[in-house]
Structure formats: structure tokens, C-alpha cells
């Protein structure tokens, strides 16, 4: 018996040695204490941080196996925000472990989160033996999840779903975790029936609120508004701390057209949990829609305030708030806000461009003669450097503002990027056309659309020609060169992936092609998780690998 225990200690010691630890606590005595506990079992790679911001920076720059985080971190982000951002941004996979340390049992801010939950939630005072025991159990349970992280890192959600089933094993706690993950992934891929089966099976075991929540989401996504509303209302009735459920109930109310109730519900939940930027912006949008300017101003102010420490911050709340300030004659506040925004987004080109444009536009509106050339040169420089990373909405907004500033050429070079990414997508072409029409450029619009279409269709034809002559490799090269110019063009990306898969079916797996396919598909899925074609090609690619 004693020998067995000794062996156990040795085994965990060896596993602690390899792991990388991050300790986050604003109280230095606690950091020292946790560090001491971990080093006593041989952990060597331990980083400590005293606040949420520094912790996120650490998490972004290196990979950790275990994070031990106090909920209460003083100013800035709290422990739950650190967890949510780290998981949301992919800094922490499913195989990594997150322990939340709290002073009181039952923290509503931690337990009310049905989507992002810590692996363990420990209450102070934390005893060394108990921490190590709990850690050993969690590490053992989570080790097998590495394969799922790998699949997800490649954007291969289908494989991840299969793995969720394969990896269940005899540990009931792990099975439950995997079933939950499987449900979420199925919803992501619109496999509602499968997700529903998963949740219903779980609900027969216990009334897990997150499983009910899953069923509610499925109902809403299928357009069954009444059913979704029934489930969400029941969950809130069960406990008014489930803040994520409110967000989904708001979606139901919006779909039903009940904007007044949606707003009042969001006001209730932002009171309960004010720190979410996304939620404050949603409230701002609704309040604007309902012409409730006071509430909108308040919500966008909160979004800006909490966005200082959040990965969800965007230029949008600054622009909306600046507009509200302008319209109510608060010029000084407006200018100060936009200047703050430039500092906040100095490392986020998309948001920075938006802010610069707004700044130029507002300046011009205030004083027709004010000098905006330097600002616009900055916009031009940034657009050139980052045009492929920018979101379509950013591009369209920026183009619209360039028109308003009479920078027609600049507006149209931006719109050309949008068109090149969507040369065969009627919806985007129409949006570009409408924007140009709104600025009296309808003739130029048709010309621009024709020229882009012509250019890309010609490449398409040349590829088909090459393919019919058996020049598979040449076609792939031409396609990939074009994609390097217009990386956002979905049609070309899919065409190129299909061609490479065909090539590999015939000639066996070619590493560089395989890598390029994965990379391209992952990019598409990152933009739209539900992209059916991308998912379908991903499946084909995976099958290609398993075949001998």
C-alpha cells in the first residue's frame, strides 16, 4: 500500500515537471503560496502574474498546461473574464486545465456562465494536499483531450465530434465534459438533430441547465421561437443569474419584433453583469432602434469603459458614442473619445482605420476647412498594409466615409477589394452597387463590377483549360497565385482546394498541398463555421489521409 502511494507520488512528480503553470493572483502572498505548493511536487516551469491584463499577455505568448487563477483580481479583468477570453481566443485548449480560486462558494459570476466554466472551482483556504490531489485527477482526466485540441486547431470540427465520442472512456466526469463539447460542436456545424439527441440523453440523467440551454439554442436556430422562449424563460425562472440565457432570450424577442421588451431585458441583465462589451453594444443598438438615446449613450459608455480590458472591444462603440455626443452638441467629449480610441486600437488596424475615418469625418463636419489630409494619408497607408485582414463590414464602412470626404478614388479602390473577394456573390455585389449609387456613382459601379468579374472569370477559364489539358499542377499554381492576391475569395479558395484534393487522390498525399488545403479551409471556417462546402472538403481531406 505504502509502495503504491510512493509510486503515485513519483508519477505525479514526473508529470508536474513537464507541465507549464501560470498562477494569477493579485495578492503576492497567495502567488508565493501557490508557487510553493507546486514546486514542492517538482513543478519547475511556473509563471506568476498579478492582474488579468498581464495574465492574458502571458497566455497569448506561450502555452500553459495549468492555470490557477483567483476570481478576484482587483482593477481590470476578473478571473472569469481571463478564462472566457483565453478560451475564446484559443489560448487555452480543452486539454489545458483552469482552476478558479474563489473566496466564497457559489460565485454567481462563475457559476452563471454556462458556456465558459473553469475545470475546477476551489474555495479558499486552499490546502496544499487538496490542490495537488485535485490537480492530479484533472490532469489525468484531461490528458486525452489533446487530440481534440489538435483537430480543432486545424479547424476539423467533424473529427473533433468523432473524438468526443471515442474518448469518453470510464471516467464519468470526462464523458460529461465531452458530451457537452459534442453538443456545442454539433450546433456550430448545424447538426441540430445530433446535438438534440446528445442533450436529451443527458437530461434523462440529470437536469443540467447547460443541456436545457443547448436545446433552447437549437429551437431558436431552427426558428421555433415559442419553444426557444419557453426554455429560456424556464431557465431564468430557475435562476436569474444565468446571464447568457438572457442574451438568447433577447434574440428571441428581437425575432418576434418585441424590441421594447428586448431592451428592458438587456437593461436588467447589464445591471446584473455590467462587464460584457458585447452585451452593452447590443443594448446600445436596441436603444438606438427604440429611439431611447439616453439608454444608448449610457450603454455605449459602459461598452467603452469595460472594453479597455476586453478582447471584444471594437471601434464601433466609439463611433456610435461619438455620433451620440455630436448630435447632442457635446463636441469636446466627442473629440476626446475619438482620441482615446486611437490609443486603444493602436495595434488593431481594422478598428484603427474606422476611427481615423470617423475622426476625419467629424472634423470636417465641425469645420469645413479643417486639415484632414494627414489623417487620410494614414488611413491609406494602413489600408495598403492590411487590406487582406480587414472584415468586409469595415471595408464598406470605410468606403462610405471616403465618399463622404470626397475621396472617390480611395473609396473605389476599397470597394474593389470587396468585389475581388466576392466576384460571384450577388449579395455583396448588390451592397457595393447600392453604396455607389447612394453617392451618385451608378455608372462607375457597373464598370467596376464588370472589370473585376472579367478579371477573375478569365482566371477561372484559364484554369479549366489547363485542367482539361491535364495541367493539374499548373492550374493549382495559377489558382494559388491568384489567391495570394485575393485571399478572401471563397470561390477561388474552394476551387483550388478541390483541384488539390483531386491531385492527391490520383498521386497520393502531397505535404505542401495538404498543408495549403488545411490552412485555406481553416481560414474559411474561421470566417463562417457553418460553411458547408468548406466542411465537406475538410471531411474529404481527412478521409484522404486515413486511406493507405
Amino acid at each position: 500500500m505504502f509502495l503504491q502511494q510512493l509510486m503515485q507520488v513519483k508519477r505525479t512528480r514526473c508529470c508536474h515537471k513537464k507541465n507549464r503553470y501560470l498562477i494569477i493572483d493579485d495578492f503576492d502572498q497567495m502567488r508565493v503560496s501557490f508557487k510553493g505548493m507546486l514546486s514542492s511536487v517538482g513543478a519547475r516551469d511556473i509563471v506568476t502574474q498579478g492582474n488579468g491584463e498581464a495574465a492574458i499577455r502571458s497566455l497569448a505568448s506561450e502555452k500553459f498546461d495549468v492555470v490557477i487563477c483567483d476570481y478576484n483580481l482587483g482593477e481590470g479583468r476578473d478571473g472569469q473574464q481571463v478564462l472566457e477570453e483565453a478560451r475564446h481566443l484559443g489560448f487555452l485548449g480543452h486539454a489545458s486545465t483552469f482552476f478558479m480560486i474563489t473566496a466564497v462558494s457559489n460565485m454567481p459570476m462563475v457559476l452563471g456562465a454556462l458556456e465558459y466554466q473553469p475545470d475546477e472551482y476551489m474555495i479558499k483556504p486552499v490546502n496544499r494536499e487538496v490542490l495537488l490531489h485535485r490537480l492530479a485527477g484533472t490532469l489525468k482526466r484531461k490528458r486525452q483531450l489533446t487530440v481534440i485540441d489538435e483537430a480543432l486547431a486545424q479547424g476539423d470540427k467533424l473529427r473533433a465530434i468523432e473524438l468526443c465520442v471515442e474518448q469518453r472512456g470510464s471516467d464519468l466526469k470526462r464523458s460529461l465534459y465531452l458530451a457537452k463539447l459534442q453538443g456545442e460542436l454539433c450546433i456550430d456545424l448545424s447538426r441540430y438533430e445530433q446535438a438534440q439527441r446528445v442533450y436529451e440523453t443527458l437530461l434523462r440523467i440529470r437536469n443540467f441547465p447547460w443541456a436545457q440551454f443547448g436545446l433552447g439554442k437549437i429551437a431558436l436556430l431552427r426558428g421555433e421561437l415559442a419553444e426557444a422562449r419557453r426554455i429560456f424563460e424556464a431557465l431564468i425562472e430557475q435562476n436569474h443569474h444565468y446571464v447568457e440565457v438572457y442574451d438568447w432570450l433577447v434574440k428571441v424577442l428581437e425575432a418576434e419584433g418585441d424590441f421594447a421588451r428586448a431592451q428592458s431585458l438587456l437593461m436588467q441583465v447589464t445591471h446584473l453583469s455590467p462587464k460584457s462589451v458585447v452585451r452593452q453594444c447590443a443594448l446600445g443598438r436596441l436603444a438606438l432602434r427604440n429611439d431611447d438615446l439616453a439608454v444608448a449613450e449610457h450603454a455605449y459608455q459602459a461598452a467603452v469603459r469595460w472594453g479597455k480590458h476586453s478582447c471584444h472591444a471594437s471601434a464601433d462603440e466609439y463611433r456610435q458614442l461619438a455620433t451620440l455626443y455630436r448630435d447632442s452638441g457635446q463636441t469636446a467629449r466627442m473629440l476626446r473619445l475619438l482620441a482615446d480610441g486611437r490609443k486603444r486600437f493602436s495595434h488593431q488596424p481594422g478598428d484603427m482605420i474606422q476611427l481615423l475615418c470617423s475622426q476625419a469625418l467629424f472634423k470636417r463636419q465641425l469645420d469645413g476647412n479643417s486639415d484632414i489630409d494627414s489623417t487620410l494619408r494614414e488611413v491609406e497607408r494602413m489600408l495598403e498594409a492590411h487590406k487582406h485582414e480587414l472584415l468586409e463590414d469595415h471595408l464598406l464602412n470605410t468606403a462610405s466615409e471616403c465618399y463622404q470626404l470626397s475621396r472617390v478614388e480611395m473609396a473605389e479602390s476599397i470597394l474593389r477589394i470587396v468585389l475581388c473577394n466576392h466576384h460571384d456573390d450577388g449579395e455583396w455585389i448588390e451592397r457595393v452597387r447600392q453604396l455607389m449609387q447612394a453617392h451618385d456613382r451608378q455608372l462607375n459601379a457597373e464598370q467596376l463590377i464588370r472589370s473585376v468579374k472579367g478579371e477573375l472569370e478569365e482566371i477561372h477559364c484559364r484554369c479549366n483549360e489547363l485542367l482539361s489539358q491535364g495541367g493539374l499542377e499548373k492550374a493549382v499554381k495559377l489558382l494559388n497565385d491568384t489567391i495570394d492576391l485575393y485571399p478572401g475569395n471563397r470561390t477561388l479558395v474552394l476551387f483550388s482546394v478541390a483541384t488539390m484534393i483531386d491531385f492527391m487522390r490520383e498521386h497520393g498525399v502531397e505535404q505542401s498541398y495538404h498543408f495549403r488545403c488545411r490552412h485555406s479551409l481553416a481560414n474559411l471556417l474561421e470566417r463562417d463555421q457553418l460553411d458547408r462546402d468548406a466542411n465537406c472538403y475538410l471531411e474529404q481531406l481527412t478521409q484522404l489521409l486515413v486511406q493507405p
Partner: protein
Amino acid sequence: MPETQAVNEKLDMATAFAMASHDIKNSLGVLLKDINNINERCDVGSCVMRSHCADMEYEVRRINNNLVKMLTLFKLGAGDYLLNVDAHSVRDFLDEMMLEQAVLMGQKGIGYEIACEPDLYWYFDRNLMTGVMGNAISNALRYTRDRLLITAEASVEGLKIAVEDNGSGFPAFMLEQQAEFLRPESGFLNNNTGLGLYFTQQVLDLHQHDALHGRVVLDNGGALSGGRFSILLP
């Protein structure tokens, strides 16, 4: 508006509780660490400080248990408790409960045994059950002579867990009155055992499942012929 005022008062009370307990918990953590440090520096086995350390640690844990009880009952009363049910290995849970007391038991010369299948899993709120078991074990440690036995097994009604000791058992009046804890007017709630039972029953009620209700029973006898605290967790 009197209504708003009442709401504000309630909120302030909850915040005050949370703030104060946060601070008390930090202090208890520091105290426990200090006690352990003193204990580790007594390298002579017979050092008289060691038994003082054990006594201090016991009291600190009692303060902590009571704090948990108080806060949980407060939240339950306010309808504010978020149940966090997950699957747990029962063996693992009980091991952890005893690990927490390991140093203390070593000092007092108390041995223990856990009788539970290694692959037994159950669904429960771990932190609430830690409160329940911490309470029961702390009580058993106080009255046992030198041994504890923890047993756990699954049944159709639920998970049965018992904490047995080899002390002289619960006094007769306590066994007779144990059902009274559910009636606050009986006065049984005024003693600590009564409050502990009340807390336990509240926790078991929260775990209601498939129309199965949990219960807590005290009796004497069992394998160690001392007191026995048993619960049935649906």
C-alpha cells in the same frame, strides 16, 4: 419607494457578506499556513507545540465550516443559490475530504479507512457536499477515540455515505430529537448539531432527482460501535 429601498438593503447585505467572508477566508488561509509552518518546525515528535497546532488547526477548520454553512444558508434563504451539479468520482471526493484532515489526524493519532469502490461515480454539487462532509467529519474527529470509517455505496434510492467513529456515540436525547431539526420552533436548531443537520438536509433537498428525496440519519453502533452519521444522496 419602500420597495426599492428593501431591494437595496438586501443587495448591500449580500455584498457585505461576500466582502467580509472574502477577507475572513484569506485570513483563515494565512492562519492555516502559519500553523503548518510552526508544526513543521517542531522536529521533535514529542514537542508540546504540536498538539497545540493540531488544536488550532481544528478550530480554524471549524470556523471555516461554520462560515460556509452560514453563507450557504443565507443564499438558499434568498433563493440565490446556483446548483453546480457535475459527475464526480466518489472515492476521489472522499479521499480529498480526508486529505484535508491528514495532518490533524496524524497529530491526534486518529486512523481512518475509506470503504468505497474506485469506479463509483455520482452527480452532485461538489462544494455543497464538501460542506456537508466537512461538518460530519469534523464532528466525528471531535468525539472519536482513534478511528474513523467512511463508507459509500450506490443503491436504487441514491448514494449512501456514512461517517462512523469509535467514540461513545451520540447522546440519547440527540438521537430522539434528531427529527426536530426541520422544525425551527423546536429549539433543536439552536445547538450546532441541529444546525449541521438542517444544513445537510437543505443540501440533500437541492439534489432532489426523479422524485427521490435525500435524508440524513444519526445513530449509534455500526462497524466501529460509536456514532454514525449517514446520508442518502439522490
